[in-house]
């Protein structure tokens, strides 16, 4: 399939800043769950358009601002 430029957002966690507060998992359970010590497990770094609003809210709500939402233009083949 043709390779097309797909713009989107990707989620990144600063693991040193992260204190395991767990707010992100409350606000974005679609992408984030917590391990047994309360630290986030990122299921997928790619944020779909439907989840973008939730992701933004999760980023803003992090008590230590350990999450970033980066704009990416990625080369993605037709099949996902």
């Amino acid at each position, binding site marked *: 399939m043709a390779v097309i430029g797909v713009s989107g957002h990707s989620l990144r966690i600063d693991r040193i*800043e992260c*204190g*395991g*507060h*767990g*707010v992100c998992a*409350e*606000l974005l359970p679609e992408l984030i769950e*917590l391990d*047994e*010590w*309360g630290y986030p497990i990122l299921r997928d770094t790619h944020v779909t358009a439907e989840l973008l609003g939730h992701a933004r809210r999760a*980023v*803003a*709500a992090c*008590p*230590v*601002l*350990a999450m970033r939402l980066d704009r990416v233009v990625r080369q993605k083949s037709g099949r996902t």
Partner: protein
Amino acid sequence: MTGIVQLAASGPSPLWYATRAGGTVALLLLTATVALGIAVGGRYEPRRGARFEIGALHRNLSVLTLVFLALHIVTAIADTFVNLGWLVAVVPFAASYRTFWLGLGTVAFDLMLAVAATSAVRLRLGQRRWKAVHWLGYAAWPVALFHAAGTGTDTRLSVQLALYAGCVAVVVAAVWWRLYRAGPGRLAARLWAGVAAAVVPVVLAMFLNWGPTQSGWAQRADGTGSASATSAASTFDNGRSVA
């Protein structure tokens, strides 16, 4: 609150009562905001659920504090009985009326404004700078408390004194709770927090005993102000503080 209602019925200007009520409610809200911030700040064990709600409560309480502060300040300035310019709202110790004690209120307001403004742009500011400013919240609370005790027309009411005592108790309890959960490490910081939490109530009690609860505080309150305090202001004041 019955005392305030009675006072409202006998007082000369509704604005003045709005100022006092607004200030008192703002102090209660500020206390709730600060105590919540202290109690849930830090992170010591995995916590499930309600993290976001507590954060939202902290933020909403702080916004509500600012709303009542706005009422407190606007009504105080709008009330023509005491001549206060708009500058007094943001420039500390610029008032002719009870310069020092009112100035404390302005200082607390400025600190809260700084905390609120930086919180609004927290994402752009970055965590470190935001947090450095956010620490000012800890300073705003005792300053506001002393402003209330020193300027507050109602300080001599036992209901008002009970409210102050309640505010102090809540914040001290929050500090203790935080220290209890903190565990080892950062000994110096924990010691300072403990000492500060103990000093504020003691100093406040001594101050209340020495000043506002004694007769003649109205004149002394003006006297402790800076040179900009004018005698004209004190004459206004005499009529006020007997209430």
